[in-house]
């Protein structure tokens, strides 16, 4: 192909000088294209190439709403024979305290004395295999998540196909999960609680398109379904068994508690569109939007804007802003009017109506020195701050400590959280 182009170019050059520039331009484009493709940097543009071989070591901290969650995470990816990529992921969450909607479901005495504090640990392990054939990519994944009161196994399968000169990539994925839901009492499994089981299914359709030489867009459509597989009457496996709802009563406090009751299935749909644009001076701007609905009455939408800029030769800076809002589930209430007020009862603040804003800052530093065995190394620090304002979940904490409020008329709850990520990445 290149040889033919060169021969044709030579003939034309000897004829008319006007065409020289045109042919020279084509020749130059061909040579540059061939050189770039030979270096492997462009062929690896979107699909049909294996991911980079790398090791990542991450430390993470979440601090907000009286909860601290921290832990390490490790990711290792290694390629074999140019067609197979294997990755392993190890992740730990160490949780210092229960969420406010779980914590204050306990008795008022527990709340005031702080006796309801607890800590727990979650361990997640994943192995994934990716196989490439021509312009198709197949991947298989297996993930386990273990807590002392909750175990989950997830199997993932996906396939993607690049076409249209590798400008378009179509992908399809499905996930199947099996969970066991338990309940703890004083840090140990509650013998009176029957372990519940649930299945999770998730289907994903994705379309990635290179629109111009500076613009890429991704469209994702997800459909998910969770359901209980061994329910008896009054069982509810899709909620946290520790959490309770409160209702107005004639007790001295003016209210009382009863167990949550959720539907046995949860069907979700989400559609997301995101685009990223390359700006001069090695910068990019990215926009994400997403819409979510489920059969519980929750409708959510979010949008995010992210800017990445190389400020020095080896330093990347990232700034982002995100907004999120959702409506409440049909069966959510912070205070029900009486016991068993409806068939389904929830007081999970994640099912209430709320909105949040987040800002994020991050720095990636490419280490200038060579570490033996690695081609490239980076040190990264990212900080996100979230502010969540709940529209119908009240600050029960202040109510209990300070008093002076009528039940259900406490101040609305709001939450500020910091999310920190520090990680080292090594490419080999």
């Amino acid at each position, binding site marked *: 192909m290149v040889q033919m182009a060169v021969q044709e170019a030579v003939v034309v050059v000897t004829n008319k000088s006007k065409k020289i520039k045109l042919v020279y331009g084509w020749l130059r484009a061909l040579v540059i294209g061939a050189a770039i493709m030979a270096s492997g940097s462009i062929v690896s543009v979107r699909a049909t190439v294996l991911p980079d071989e790398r090791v990542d070591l991450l430390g993470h901290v979440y601090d907000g709403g009286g909860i601290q969650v921290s832990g390490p995470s490790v990711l290792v990816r290694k390629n074999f024979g140019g067609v197979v990529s294997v990755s392993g992921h190890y992740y730990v969450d160490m949780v210092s305290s229960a969420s406010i909607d779980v914590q204050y479901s306990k008795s008022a005495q527990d709340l005031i004395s702080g006796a309801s504090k607890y800590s727990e640990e979650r361990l997640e392990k994943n192995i994934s295999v990716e196989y490439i054939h021509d312009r198709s990519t197949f991947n298989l994944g297996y993930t386990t998540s273990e807590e002392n009161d909750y175990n989950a196994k997830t199997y993932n399968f996906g396939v993607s196909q690049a076409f249209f000169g590798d400008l378009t990539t179509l992908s399809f994925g499905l*996930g199947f999960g099996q969970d066991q839901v338990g309940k703890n009492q004083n840090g140990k499994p509650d013998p009176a609680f029957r372990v519940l089981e649930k299945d999770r299914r998730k289907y994903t359709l994705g379309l990635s398109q290179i629109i111009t030489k500076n613009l890429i867009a991704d469209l994702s459509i997800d459909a998910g379904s969770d359901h209980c597989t061994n329910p008896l009457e009054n069982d509810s496996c899709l909620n946290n068994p520790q959490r309770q709802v409160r209702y107005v009563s004639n007790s001295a406090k003016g209210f009382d508690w009863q167990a949550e009751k959720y539907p046995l299935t949860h069907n979700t749909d989400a559609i997301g569109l995101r685009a990223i644009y390359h700006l001069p001076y090695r910068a990019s701007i990215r926009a994400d939007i997403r819409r979510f609905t489920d059969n519980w009455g929750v409708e959510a939408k979010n949008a995010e804007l992210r800017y990445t800029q190389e400020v020095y030769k080896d330093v990347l800076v990232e700034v982002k802003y995100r907004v999120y809002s959702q409506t409440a589930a049909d069966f959510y209430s912070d205070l029900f009017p009486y016991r068993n007020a409806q068939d389904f009862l929830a007081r999970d603040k994640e099912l209430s109506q709320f909105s949040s804003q987040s800002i994020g800052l991050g720095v990636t530093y490419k280490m200038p020195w060579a570490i033996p065995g690695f081609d490239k190394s980076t040190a990264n620090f990212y900080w996100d701050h*979230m502010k969540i304002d709940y529209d119908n979940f009240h600050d029960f904490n202040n109510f209990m400590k300070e008093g002076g409020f009528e039940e259900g008329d406490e101040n609305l709850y709001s939450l500020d959280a910091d999310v920190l990520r520090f990680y080292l990445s090594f490419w080999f």
Partner: protein
Amino acid sequence: MNLKRVSFGLLLLGTLSACGYIKPIKPWVKPYERQNIADPIMSFSRDPISDSYLSHVRDAREGASGADGGAGGGCGCN
């Protein structure tokens, strides 16, 4: 009615295309023009370990999930 219109439109497009009046769309971004697209700052997930953690935090704090590139590993974090 709508089905007839769609069928007619497709037939018309096919005929015009077969007669050479409509040229097939070709990839408009050539391989040698993809230098910017190949830049790591154009990746939707430059560092998967970091992105999957943030996605997990959001899933635990929000009622919505999915369509954000994450696989979802399952946890009792609700």
